[in-house]
C-alpha cells in the first residue's frame, strides 16, 4: 500500500514548484531560491518552533488553493503558513508586500540603537542587510529609545539588550541544544527583555551557539569583543576532531595572519548555521595549530567581508630577484620600528576579553 505522496503545486511570483504537503511558503520559496525568497529574521530552519515573530517574511496569498481560490484576506507570515495545492503567492511582485515590509523594518528599528560603529555584528548583521534592502532611509520615531539595565551573562557571551529584536532564536537554541536553559524572555510587551532570572551566567556547553543564531548584535562573542572588525579578518574553513559527540568540529576561523581571532559555525546562504559547534571549539581553541585548515571560505562578493579578498588574481613575477642574483632587496624601512599598530609583541587574540587601555600601555617601550 505504498501510496505515492501527493505533491502540492505552488506558484510563487509566477514560478511553479512542487512541494510536499506541510511545507511552509518560506521553505517552498527557498526551494526555488533566488530573489523571491522572503527575508526572515526570526525563523530558523534548524530550530523547532521558531518563526512567526518578526513579520519580515510577510507575503500575499492571491489564491488560496485550487479547492478554494479566494485570496487570503491579509498578508501572511510565510514561515508559519503551510502551502495548499494550487496556491499562488506574491512576494517581490506585490507592491503591497514591499510596502508592508518597509513598515516592518521601520518597526524593528524603532528601538534599535543604531550603534553599528561600535557593534561587533556590523558587516554580518541580518538587520543591517534587511534595512539596506527593504527599509526606508530614515525613521519617523521621535521619542527616546528603550534602554535596559546592563546585565552580565558570563565571561564568554556579551548581551546588549538594546539591540535585541526579540526573535526568540536564542531561547529556542538554549532549549533544544543545551541540557539546561538559563535564559529567556522576562517582562512583557515593550519591557520584555532577554535575561537570566536572578543574574546567573550562561555556561552550558553549546550555549555559544546563541551568538551565531542571533540575527543582530544583541549576543556577541566576548572573547572577540572589539578586537577587530569582521571585514578585516580572513575567514577560512577549518575542522578539528572534537571529543564532544554532538559537535561536528567544522568551523570557520576568522584569522589575521596566524592569529585566530574568532571561531564561528559555518553559515549557509540564509545566514543559518549548517552544524552547531560546542563551546570548546568556539571559545578555547584560538590557535592555528589546533585546527586543520581546509581553505578560504567563499564569501558573497557583495558582502563587505569580501573586501580585499581578490579571487582569480594572477601575481606578476617579481623581476627583482633575478636582477639581484638572488639577493634580497634591502629593506629601507621596517614599519614595526615606528608603528604602534599590530605590534608583533602584542597578540590581541590572546587576551581573554576585550582589550583595555592597559593592554596596550604596560608593554610600551
Amino acid at each position: 500500500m505504498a501510496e505515492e505522496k501527493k505533491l502540492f503545486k505552488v506558484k510563487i511570483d509566477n514560478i511553479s514548484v512542487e512541494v510536499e504537503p506541510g511545507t511552509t511558503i518560506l521553505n517552498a520559496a527557498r526551494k526555488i531560491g533566488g530573489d523571491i525568497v522572503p527575508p526572515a529574521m526570526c525563523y530558523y530552519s534548524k530550530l523547532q518552533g521558531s518563526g512567526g515573530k518578526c513579520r519580515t517574511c510577510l507575503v500575499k496569498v492571491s489564491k488560496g488553493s485550487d479547492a478554494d481560490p479566494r485570496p487570503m484576506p491579509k498578508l501572511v507570515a510565510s514561515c508559519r503558513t503551510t502551502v495548499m495545492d494550487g496556491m499562488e503567492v506574491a512576494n517581490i511582485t506585490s507592491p503591497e508586500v514591499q510596502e508592508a515590509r518597509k513598515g516592518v523594518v521601520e518597526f524593528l528599528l524603532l528601538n534599535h540603537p543604531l550603534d553599528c560603529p561600535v557593534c561587533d555584528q556590523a558587516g554580518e548583521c541580518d538587520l543591517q542587510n534587511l534595512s539596506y534592502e527593504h527599509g526606508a532611509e530614515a525613521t519617523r520615531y521621535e521619542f527616546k529609545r528603550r534602554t535596559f539595565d546592563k546585565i552580565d551573562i558570563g565571561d564568554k557571551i556579551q548581551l546588549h539588550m538594546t539591540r535585541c529584536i526579540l526573535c526568540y532564536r536564542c531561547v529556542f537554541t538554549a532549549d533544544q541544544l543545551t541540557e539546561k536553559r538559563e535564559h529567556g524572555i522576562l517582562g512583557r510587551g515593550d519591557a520584555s527583555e532577554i535575561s537570566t532570572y536572578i543574574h546567573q551566567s550562561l555556561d552550558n556547553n553549546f550555549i555559544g551557539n546563541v551568538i551565531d543564531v542571533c540575527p543582530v548584535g544583541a549576543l556577541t562573542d566576548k572573547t572577540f569583543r572589539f578586537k577587530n572588525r569582521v571585514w578585516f579578518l580572513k575567514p577560512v574553513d577549518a575542522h578539528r576532531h572534537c571529543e564532544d559527540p554532538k559537535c561536528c568540529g567544522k568551523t570557520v576561523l576568522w584569522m589575521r595572519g596566524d592569529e585566530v581571532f574568532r571561531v564561528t559555525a559555518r553559515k549557509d546562504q540564509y545566514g543559518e548555521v549548517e552544524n552547531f559547534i560546542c563551546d570548546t571549539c568556539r571559545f578555547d581553541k584560538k590557535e592555528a595549530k589546533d585546527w586543520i585548515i581546509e581553505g578560504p571560505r567563499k564569501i558573497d562578493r557583495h558582502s563587505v567581508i569580501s573586501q580585499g579578498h581578490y579571487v582569480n588574481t594572477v601575481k606578476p613575477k617579481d623581476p627583482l630577484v633575478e636582477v639581484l642574483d638572488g639577493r634580497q632587496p634591502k629593506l629601507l624601512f621596517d614599519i614595526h620600528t615606528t608603528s604602534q599598530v599590530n605590534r608583533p609583541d602584542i597578540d590581541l587574540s590572546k587576551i581573554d576579553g576585550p582589550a583595555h587601555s592597559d593592554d596596550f600601555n604596560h608593554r610600551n617601550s
Partner: protein
Amino acid sequence: MQALTNRAKPVDRRPMTFMEKLYVPAIAKGMGITLKHLFQRKATVSFPEKKRDFSPVFRGLHVLNRDEEGRERCTACGLCAVACPAEAITMEAAERKTGEENLYREEKYAARYEINMLRCIFCGFCEEACPKDAIYMSETFAPSNYQRKGFIYGKDDLLIPDPKTGK
C-alpha cells in the same frame, strides 16, 4: 600622409627680407616683452614668508576630532580604513573602562590609530566614511621629513587639542 588636424603650418623657407636681416627690431621687440613682464603681477609667491589661501575644499593633513567636552569621537569602527583606497589607515580598538568616560565618547574607542602619510593620497574618503564626525582633513600640508619614520602619524599627532584644557 594625411594630417591629423588642419592646424599644421608648413615651415616658412623663404629667404629673409632686409628688415629681418637687421635683427635689431626683433631683439627690441623681444626685450619689450621681457620688460613688460617686469611690471606685471608675479605669478608666484615667496612661499615660506607669504602663504596662499587654501581653497575651501582643500584636503590636507588629517585631524582626529573631539566633542565639546573634549572626549575623543573616534570609536574605531574601521569604516575609514575600509574606505581608504591606499590602505593607509590602521587602528586597534579597546573597551572603555569605568573612569575613562571623560576621555572617550563611546564604549569602544581607538587605542591606536595610525595614518601612514607615505601611503595616503589625500582623497578624503575617510572623512566621508566617518559616521562619528571624528576624522577631518585640515588646511595644512603634511610637513616634509628626511626620514620615513616621520610620516607614521599616531594618535598624538592627529588628535586636536582638548577644547577645555587646551592641550
